């Protein structure tokens, strides 16, 4: 292990060694280390390759703002783009660097750097145009996708994530100094409070730097410990650690992601992450600030890091990335690092400040002088140089002379920004502060309070005043926190965005966006090409469009642009930070609504019987319906369907039709209501009879169909299609409540109250007479389209004589809790008559043979009853019904509308397919006029060949003519257009 450890650190457990692998090499870190701190401990500074130019990159920061250090976690489903600066290590962790080949040290892609003149800003839009349009799809895009990019998405994994909803009064985002003070002041108040922090240790800057010497006369660590304990013991505040708020939506809705396995290997089948969805009355943003970098030649070399990050590695992780670092700054934020370095005995190799000596904080000035640290005031770094790591820097001093300093590390500070991402997501407005050179929250759009540096309040001495003023709305007691500081309490900065280089070379670049490899030259070029609006410029150059959203650099870009345009930064404006604050995995977003719970499932009351009897299911809406019942694993669907349908035609079959929608309608005006809702007239129907009915939309198109049973003029039961049940009930409710409120009528869904079993086939009567011996099923006592109520072993049932197969049939409606008992009786009594269960595919075949339509398959929302040849179902004498007026529109009465017909292949060995176009010409020319298409198509064991239903233009008048069905291979099959009924046209079977 290296001598870079600061073993007096209290956060790292130096007694607990942890082994992990990076790019196949084994290293050791300690419990509490991030990947970055552990690798730095091992003196590893090269972590990845850049997005476009494949330049070597190191750790630039120590937190979520990191643009460079993205790695693939092989030991966690190969999770890509993980920030090494926040991901904690665990024993056996395997990590790989990204976007390099064949290795991180030797990456062929770095040749891109040599070709950088052909990859300027907006090169995506300028190049790859020719010589042919196919070049993009087949040549350029695959190459670019392979060469550029981030990690590789995992191919096979099953992450487990849950969602957790919260409803609270106040949410505090950030458990640093201000967040803790705010939470403490809310202990045991009437408010329910959530305190959320990304770290597993609350305290923020108190843990990460040496800025604060004491809080209320206690060491920062003692104060944090005592405060956190008080908060934890309170009844009204809950702390969420390891949780990052990523999104601030409208109406104070926050989304936060919690890592459940920080510092340990995620367990299979255990929740890896929880997505918290928080609805809160008030949000307190105390999520701190982000330090900026500076642009100069090769400011991306490994060995360059932000000042506060270097200090965080020392204070929070007990590792010093380098013992001889140079510090370069234009503001007072670097003071704390210098103090920490000297305190630990690693005084900086040099201190360079763009400010003049009198503008540097006196305490810092004295500290540097007292420790004999070479000081360069009024100076700037012109460039950094080295091979895959920093080796030297060139400093232009106040006299204009250029000095070379050999060093392996450089700490930078270009200023600090309030972390306004969440604030702007909430639609809060920002304002430019000319003194502190940053955008600060100005006006909240939602009930949002910003505290501390998140509000742009960088003065430690003003903490009490700000908290007491802003939290007065909660009626809390005034807070009085006493802070002793090691550094100056105020923030001071002098403008510096970029240092221009000594000389330009192809290799040397001055970056403004490290993640997307955008250079300051790109910004200049974009402006020279007219992209001077900040949102245009962002998209043209891709500046701040990476997964880090330019957290350390976007303000610098604004500064450079404002200088180039000679405008104030406020006039240039700022781009909008979009959610999420940091990338979220799809697994976290999906939560448990994936895999086995991808879609809620509805099951019929006898679902388990179907499973036991080998049913193969199909999804119909959310219902699981038996599709077919193979007799063994070798039987195909086609074979099973041929067998099942033949059995229904020859013996009998039973279908579980429980999924059909069922609606009970009752009221004094039920008859009038039904006459208005459906096309049919129910006025002359006798109680105890039923009728096939059509429901239309206001446009006159078929919306649903079903059978209406009339119990009395004041009481009906309607069935609907499986998929249309909710729509039909909703439609009935809507019309009853809004269009015809004068009608006294109510309706309830009874879909799930009753199971429905459809028995049909020539032997049906034999079976049903055995099941219900007390019922007289003769034609005289129980004619077609009538229904009766009976008691069966104390169970009230309803039997309807109807058929959807063309065979004689009955539908039995049974209370769901009794369904299995009666189904098993039917199966048992039917055995001797050859009764077999059949599935939906057989049902479709049988009904198509009979010419019965399926709404949604043979109709598509543009078909009227007349198009289907169902004009006999329209109550012509009715004064009104839903869709009536639309049926006499010129478009709905024109002759050449698509109409339902039957289709038979001339050569009976030919196979037709659903969706095939029907055309008149044998040869397919372009364009070929299309008559219509096949909506249903089956191989009929009864007919012995293929047949189909189709909707074709002017179809009814084309019956008897020849046409052609086109195939995807541009061939045609000769067909005959026929009547859409292929079985028992005289209905003798139904009435048998």
């Amino acid at each position, binding site marked *: 292990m290296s001598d870079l450890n600061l073993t007096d650190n209290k956060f790292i457990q130096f007694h607990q060694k942890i082994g992990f692998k990076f790019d196949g090499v084994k290293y050791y870190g300690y419990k509490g280390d991030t990947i970055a701190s552990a690798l730095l401990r091992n003196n590893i500074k090269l972590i990845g390759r850049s997005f476009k130019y494949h330049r070597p990159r190191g750790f630039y920061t120590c937190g979520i703002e990191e643009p460079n250090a993205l790695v693939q976690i092989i030991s966690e489903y190969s999770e890509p783009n993980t920030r090494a600066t926040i991901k904690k290590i665990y024993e056996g962790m395997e990590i790989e660097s990204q976007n390099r080949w064949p290795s991180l040290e030797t990456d062929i892609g770095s040749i891109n750097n040599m070709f950088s003149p052909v990859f300027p800003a907006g090169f995506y839009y300028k190049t790859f145009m020719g010589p042919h349009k196919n070049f993009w799809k087949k040549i350029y895009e695959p190459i670019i996708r392979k060469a550029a990019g981030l990690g590789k998405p995992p191919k096979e994994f099953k992450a*487990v994530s*849950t*969602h*957790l*909803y*919260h*409803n609270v009064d106040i949410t505090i985002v950030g458990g640093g100094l201000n967040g803790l003070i705010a939470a403490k002041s809310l202990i045991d108040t009437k408010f*329910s409070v959530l305190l959320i922090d990304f770290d597993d240790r609350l305290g923020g800057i108190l843990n990460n730097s040496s800025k604060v010497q004491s809080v209320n006369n206690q060491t920062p660590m003692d104060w944090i410990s005592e405060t956190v304990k008080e908060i934890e013991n309170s009844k009204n505040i809950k702390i969420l650690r390891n949780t990052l708020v990523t999104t601030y939506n409208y109406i104070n809705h926050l989304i936060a992601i919690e890592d459940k396995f920080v510092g340990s290997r995620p367990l299979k089948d*255990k*929740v890896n992450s929880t997505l918290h*969805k928080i*609805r809160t009355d008030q949000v307190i943003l105390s999520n701190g600030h982000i330090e900026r970098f500076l642009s100069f030649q090769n400011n991306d070399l490994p060995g360059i890091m932000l000042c506060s990050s270097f200090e965080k590695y020392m204070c929070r992780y007990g590792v010093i990335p380098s013992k001889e670092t140079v510090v370069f700054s234009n503001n007072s934020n670097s003071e704390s690092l210098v103090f920490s370095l000297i305190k630990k005995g690693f005084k900086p190799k040099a201190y360079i400040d763009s400010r003049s000596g009198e503008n540097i904080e006196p305490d810092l000035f004295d500290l540097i002088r007292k420790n004999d640290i070479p000081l360069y005031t009024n100076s700037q770094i012109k460039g950094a140089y080295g091979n895959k790591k920093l080796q030297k820097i060139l400093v232009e001093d106040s006299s204009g002379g250029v000095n070379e300093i050999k060093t392996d590390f450089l700490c930078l500070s270009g200023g600090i920004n309030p972390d306004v991402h969440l604030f702007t997501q909430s639609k809060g407005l920002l304002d430019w502060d000319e003194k502190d050179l940053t955008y600060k929250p100005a006006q909240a759009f939602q009930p949002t309070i910003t505290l501390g540096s998140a509000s742009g309040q960088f003065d430690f001495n003003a903490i009490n005043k700000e908290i007491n003023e802003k939290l007065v709305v909660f009626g809390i007691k005034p807070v009085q926190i006493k802070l002793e500081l090691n550094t100056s309490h105020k923030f001071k900065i002098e403008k510096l965005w970029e240092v221009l280089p000594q000389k330009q070379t192809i290799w040397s670049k001055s970056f403004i966006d490290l993640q997307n490899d955008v250079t300051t030259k790109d910004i200049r070029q974009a402006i020279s090409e007219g992209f001077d609006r900040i949102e245009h410029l962002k998209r043209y150059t891709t500046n701040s469009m990476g997964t880090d959203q330019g957290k350390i650099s976007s303000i610098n870009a604004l500064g450079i642009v404002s200088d180039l345009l000679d405008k104030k930064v406020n006039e240039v404006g700022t781009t909008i930070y979009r959610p999420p604050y940091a990338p979220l995995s799809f697994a976290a977003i999906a939560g*448990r*609504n994936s895999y*086995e*719970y991808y879609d*809620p*499932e*509805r*099951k*019929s*009351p006898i*679902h388990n019987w179907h499973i036991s009897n080998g049913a193969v299911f199909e999804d119909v809406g959310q*219902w699981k319906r038996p599709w077919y019942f193979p007799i063994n694993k070798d039987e195909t669907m086609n074979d099973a369907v041929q067998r099942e349908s033949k059995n229904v035609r020859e013996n009998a079959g039973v279908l579980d039709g429980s*999924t059909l929608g069922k609606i*009970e309608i*009752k*009221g*004094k005006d039920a008859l009038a209501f039904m006459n208005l809702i459906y096309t049919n007239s129910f006025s002359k129907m006798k109680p105890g009879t039923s009728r096939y009915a059509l429901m239309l939309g206001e446009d006159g198109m078929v919306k649903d169909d079903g059978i209406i049973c009339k119990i009395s003029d*004041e009481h009906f039961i309607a069935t609907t299609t499986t998929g249309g049940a909710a729509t039909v009930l909703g439609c009935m409710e809507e019309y009853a409540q809004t269009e015809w409120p004068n009608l*006294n009528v*109510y*309706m*309830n*869904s*009874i*879909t*799930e*109250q*009753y199971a429905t079993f459809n028995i049909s086939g020539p032997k049906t009567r034999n079976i049903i007479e055995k099941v219900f011996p007390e019922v007289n099923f003769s034609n005289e006592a129980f004619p077609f389209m009538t229904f009766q109520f009976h008691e069966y072993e*104390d169970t*009230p049932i309803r039997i309807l004589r109807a058929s959807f197969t063309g065979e004689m049939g009955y539908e039995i409606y049974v*209370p*769901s*809790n*009794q369904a299995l008992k009666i189904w098993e009786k039917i199966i048992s009594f039917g055995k001797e008559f050859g009764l077999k269960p059949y599935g939906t595919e057989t049902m479709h075949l049988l009904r198509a043979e009979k010419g019965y339509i399926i709404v949604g398959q043979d109709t598509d929302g543009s078909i009227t009853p007349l198009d289907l040849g169902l004009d006999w179902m329209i109550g012509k004498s009715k004064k009104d019904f839903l869709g009536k007026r639309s049926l006499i529109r010129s478009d709905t009465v024109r002759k050449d509308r698509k109409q339902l017909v039957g289709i038979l292949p001339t050569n009976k060995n030919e196979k037709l397919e659903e969706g095939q176009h029907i055309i008149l010409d044998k040869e397919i020319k372009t364009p070929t006029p299309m008559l219509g298409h096949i909506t249903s198509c089956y191989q009929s064991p009864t007919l012995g060949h293929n047949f189909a239903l189709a909707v074709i233009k002017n179809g009814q008048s084309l019956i008897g003519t020849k046409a052609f069905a086109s195939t995807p291979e541009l061939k045609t099959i000769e067909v005959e257009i026929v009547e859409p009924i292929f079985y028992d046209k005289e209905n003798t079977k139904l009435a048998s």
Partner: protein
Amino acid sequence: MKDVIRSNGIEIKKIISQQIVLRSSGNSEFNGVVNKALKLLPPSDNLRIVTNDNFILAKMSFDQWNLVFKKDIEQKKFHKLCDTFNKSSSILATNLTDSQIFFQVGGENATMILNKLTHFDFREKSFKPLTAAQTLLARIDCSIFNLDNVILLSCGRSFSDYLEDRLIDAVNL
């Protein structure tokens, strides 16, 4: 009643209760019929619940009341009660006993675990005792009844296996 799960500070039981859905304008005739049959005056405020030893009666919308039986009664008596309501042509009483499944949820972590499945605000100030709600739970329509120290969830029978699985999953994960 079937024990679904008892773990992690939550106890869930699955119940099939007799239930009738009543539709009416809520006029005095309706109030009279209901009061006479149940010895309960139907609540007039939406989502309010009234109870006695035998029944839970909740107003679920402006013209709908759900009547849940605390104790099962004989089928004949039950159907007779339905008929009593249906005698009035301004009332539609539908037996939904086989249509809805109830889950009785109790325990100190009940609402926290339910909040893995629904955004619904269970805090007392938002969801007072003896009130009801209709919302999504695990992405399906559910009714929730707050009965003092226990919560009653109901969903369509066809979804009940799915919801039971989701509840167990939420408790275990």
